[in-house]
């Protein structure tokens, strides 16, 4: 059987070098073990369920979408409209600092990022692209409604409701 003898470059490895390599390997392994066994911090475990509803109000016919009952109760005393149609409903589960993005019917995006969750409520950063962005401190179940500008002959309404 033919065996190719590959010329090897002789490298002199001193015991000091071996020791250094061994220590490095042990350090890396211990770091991996520490990272793998690290319990998730309380901040990381906090999750917020955000229900995002995109609706459209207009003077046209269509009635009130029953899924938007609560929103209608809040809006009807402030604005006049004949129909309220729910266009999208999204449920986002977000950790602190995790960004949830949804595409709106008008091609814009809405981004939600929980910044903090404490006894007073959840601090959410919300960016309705092309309309408004801000930080909002909401209690559990608080309804935050954005009138996000004209959409055809109606108006786009974005509402979000956090739960935790």
């Amino acid at each position, binding site marked *: 059987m033919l065996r190719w003898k590959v010329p090897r470059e002789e490298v002199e490895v001193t015991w000091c070098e071996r020791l250094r390599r061994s220590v490095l390997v042990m350090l890396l392994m211990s770091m991996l073990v520490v990272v793998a066994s690290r319990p998730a911090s309380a901040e990381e475990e906090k999750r917020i369920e955000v229900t995002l509803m995109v609706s459209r109000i207009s003077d046209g016919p269509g009635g009130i979408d029953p899924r938007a009952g609560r929103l209608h109760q809040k809006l009807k005393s402030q604005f006049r409209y004949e129909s309220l149609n729910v266009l999208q409903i999204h449920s986002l589960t977000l950790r602190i600092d995790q960004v949830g993005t949804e595409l709106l019917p008008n091609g814009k995006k809405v981004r939600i990022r929980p910044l903090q969750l404490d006894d007073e409520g959840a601090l959410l950063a919300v960016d309705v692209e092309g309309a408004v*962005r*801000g930080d909002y401190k*909401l209690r559990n179940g608080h*309804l*935050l*409604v954005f009138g996000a500008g004209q959409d055809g002959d109606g108006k786009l309404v974005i509402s979000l409701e956090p739960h935790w």
Partner: protein
Amino acid sequence: MSIHASEATPQALEQLCAYHDGELGGVARWLFERRLRRSPELQQELEELDQIGKLVRASETRADEVDLWDRIRLRLPAADAQRAEETETAWFVTPAWMRPLGAVAVAAVALLAVFFASLDTPAPSGRVVRWMDSGGRSVMVLDDAVDSDVTIIWILDAAVEGAARGGRSDVV
């Protein structure tokens, strides 16, 4: 330094100096030590060399110490003067007669802070919006304190500004 005639060879002197300075090693050192043990003159000579070395080192150390202390002493008054100047500047703002009043004011503020901190006041309602940027558009915020489970943020179009609360028919 008097080396016996029989020992005072240039080679012996050279070896003695080398031995004294620790430059001899191995067999040469062992041979010289043998010779040293047998020769009281060389021993005395070595002792004198040791003494001279100690004196030289001692004088060098003293010279360093004096120099170091001089440097420190030169800087001490400057540091003291600077500290005094800072103290003067700090108190210059407040006249001496106002210092007790200032202390009383600080104590009062601290007491008030403790008092209010001890009250378990709930978070003020209506503080939903912490920060907002509408890019120059007019925005209406409806945050009813009574019905505080909803906040409405409404971007106003130019044609419908002022439509809410009393101008409802213009909104859509």
